[in-house]
């Protein structure tokens, strides 16, 4: 299972890439493999305000469906529109072209609560 050292993670299996007061969020390689074939994703609307831990979208696979949570509070400034026609990008390339949402964060302190690669690895090893 691929876990990238330079990213942060949540217990809900989202990854976070930090970029000058903004974050890019997606779901981890582990999450996509647990869901298996993703067929549809409901994305949040651009411009809406989100709170840490709030469900902001849904990811639908052939046999199951899962909520997507905001990893941090802020404003959604961009969503990956490519996923509407090609949700399978999340399966193929979860950490790059399968990114989901870009958020301008409103409370940088929340960053401290995120997990690093090592801590996230322990979590998924516990689940397996």
């Amino acid at each position: 299972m691929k876990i990238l050292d330079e990213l942060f993670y949540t217990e809900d299996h989202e990854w976070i890439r930090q970029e000058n007061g903004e974050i890019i969020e997606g779901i981890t390689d582990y999450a996509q493999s647990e869901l298996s074939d993703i067929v549809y994703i409901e994305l949040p609307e651009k411009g809406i305000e989100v709170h840490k831990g709030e469900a902001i979208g849904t990811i639908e696979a052939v046999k199951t469906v899962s909520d997507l949570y905001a990893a941090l509070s802020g404003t959604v400034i961009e969503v990956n529109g490519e996923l509407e026609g090609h949700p399978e990008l999340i399966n193929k390339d979860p950490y790059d072209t399968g990114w989901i949402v870009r958020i301008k964060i409103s409370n940088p302190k929340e960053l401290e609560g995120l997990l690093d690669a090592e801590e996230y690895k322990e979590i998924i090893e516990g689940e397996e």
Partner: protein
Amino acid sequence: MKFIPVTESERNEMLKVIGKGIEELFSAIPDNLRLRSSLNLPPSLSELEAREKAVKLEKVNKELVCFAGGGVYDHYIPSVVEHIIRRPEFYTAYTPYQAEVSQGTLQAMFEYQSMICELTGMDISNASIYDGATALAEGIYMAIGATKREKLILSEGINPRYLEVIKTYLAKRYQIEMIPLKEGVTNPKGFEVDDKTVGVVIQHPNYLGNLEEVSTFVEKAHAKDALAIMSFDPISLGILKTPGELDVDIATAEGQSLGLPMSLGGPHLGIFTAKKKFVRKMPGRISGKTIDHEGRIGYVMALQTREQHIRRASATSNICTNQQLCALTAALYLTALGGEGIREVASQTTQKAHYLAERLENAGFELPYNKKGRKSFFREFVVEVPSGANRAIELGLKEGYLVGINLTDFKDEWKNHLLISVTEKRPKEEMDHLLEILSM
């Protein structure tokens, strides 16, 4: 599947295997709740005796000439409908749980959905839900899920029984604003839509039978990105604009008039349709058509991830079933009649209703919402019976007529008002005799 009752010796054998007595198995039930005597039942009857008893009971039923409607209507049911639904392959009330094994059932569902889409002009139909009232309440619930807003605007022209179901569904969690009626129709100026509004909910034709100015309500809702939700009468679509043409977002109906007997109020059929963009929020089952790896056509339960057995707490609805036999009945009725037949039923229904309304008015009866020159109703209208609505109903029963619905209990201003409904089944003589009864 066959039902095989367990015999005394089999029961003893099973108890022997598990090494327990029957009393021990029931020991978890507190003693004061246990029934220690036999059930209070009359002695058993032979088949002949049972049949005679049932026939005797059946004879107590009265066949009435029906002028009552209010959502359930006395239309003619072609005999082919009953012939086909009674085939043992179809004769179950339930949606199949090992669905894909029953390809015929899934195909029937798919055909039903396709016909409902054609009838309504809407993008998507589910495989049906319980009845017209739950269909509308589920439609509202879906709109709440889709808009994530909290205020609902409901017309007072919605069937009062449906309003009760809606209020039960919504409990006290949402804000409800009622749009009052003005001269029997929903006042298009009687409400304001804001950016907290989930949607505007209207019934067309409304409970009093009158046609609503649907487009105005749809436009007002859409101007604030709220949804337009409509409860319709499927037969009326033979002559009226469809919900699809009216740009309605969610359209629901009671489907009983499509070939189902009135049978004391059920089982009936909830028709549920919506625009395509809501398909992932729809309640209930949806059958889809696909091909297998050899290219053969097959039917499957589609988009099950919407449903509660997969989505759990975040599902928009807890309905995971459909009214399979009733939906099949509606599909057969629509097949038997075809587009032309539905237009014919709708047109005869409305012409007869207008004939009766005119006769009553000419005889001096007051039709408060359909005064001279203003007769935009489909099949139902309100008439005031000064000698008393209950008295008229009693007199009617003596003549073998159900003269209408007494509106007295719903609203003070409807005291001694009857809601009268007509279908293509009512010949001129019956309508003329109704006038005589009301004039007694």
